[in-house]
C-alpha cells in the first residue's frame, strides 16, 4: 500500500480511489476537495477548459505542499491529483484528499492545500468560450504582493 500520492494525469480523476488510497484504520476523517469545471466565467459561456502543466515540477511542488501540511497539522496521508488536457463542463480538474485521526486537522489541511496549490504549482488553465479563448493568469497585483 503506497503512502502519499501526488500526480498530474490525463485520465479522468476517480474520487473514490483517492479516498481509499489515503484512508487507514487509524484515521477518523478524510477531507476531500474537488475542483470542477463550471459552465461560465464572468458572464461568458465556457465550452471547455484546457489544462497545461509542467508535470515533473508540478508533482514536486504538490509533494512540497504535502510536507507543509504535515508540519502544520496532525494528518495521516495526503493525496493530490490534477488533470491536464481538455476537460468538459462538470469534470473534476483537481482532487485533494487528506486523512487524519480527527476532522478538524483534515478539513483545515485540505483548505490550506488547495490554496497553496493554486499559488505555487505550475499548472495553467485555458478557457475556451463560444467566442474566443484565453490562458487565465492569476491576479498580477496579488502575485506582486506575494513576491515580497
Amino acid at each position, binding site marked *: 500500500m503506497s503512502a502519499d500520492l501526488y500526480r498530474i494525469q490525463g485520465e479522468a480523476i476517480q474520487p473514490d480511489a483517492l479516498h481509499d488510497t489515503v484512508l487507514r484504520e487509524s484515521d477518523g476523517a478524510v477531507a476531500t476537495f474537488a475542483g470542477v469545471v463550471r459552465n461560465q466565467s464572468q458572464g461568458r459561456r465556457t465550452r471547455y477548459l484546457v489544462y*497545461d*502543466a*509542467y508535470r*515533473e*515540477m508540478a508533482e*514536486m511542488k504538490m509533494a512540497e505542499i504535502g510536507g507543509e501540511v504535515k508540519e502544520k497539522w496532525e494528518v495521516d496521508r495526503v493525496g493530490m491529483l490534477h488533470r491536464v488536457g481538455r476537460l468538459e463542463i462538470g469534470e473534476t480538474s483537481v482532487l485533494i484528499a487528506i486523512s487524519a485521526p480527527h476532522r478538524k486537522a483534515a478539513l483545515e489541511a485540505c483548505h*490550506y492545500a*488547495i*490554496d*497553496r*496549490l*493554486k*499559488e*505555487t*504549482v*505550475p*499548472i*495553467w*488553465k*485555458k478557457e475556451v468560450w463560444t467566442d474566443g479563448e484565453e*490562458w*487565465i*493568469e*492569476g*491576479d*498580477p497585483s*496579488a*502575485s506582486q*504582493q*506575494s*513576491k*515580497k
Partner: protein
Amino acid sequence: MEIKVLFFASCRDLVGKSQTSITMSDGASVSDLLARLAADHPRFTEMEASLMVSVNQAYVDRSQPLQDGDEAALIPPVSGGAAAGGVATGESRGGRSHVR
C-alpha cells in the same frame, strides 16, 4: 554551454514552441537568458516581467547563474489567486528569492 528552455501556456503560444535549446556563454545568468529570448522574440518583452523562472524545477531569482545542461522553464502566472481570502504566507511562488 547548452540550456534547455521550456515554455508553457501563454508563453508557449507567444514563442510558438514548447521547448528549445539555447547556447549561452559560460557564466551567463537567468537574466542573460531572458535577454536572449527577448532579442529572438520581440513580443516576449511584453510578458517578461510577469514570468517566474525555474531552473531544474526550482523557482529561482534572475541573478541565478546557469550551468551546462540546466533545464530552465518560463512560468507565466498560474491560474490561482482567485480564491477569496487567499493564504498570504509570504512564501508563494518563489517567495523571498524572487527579486528583479
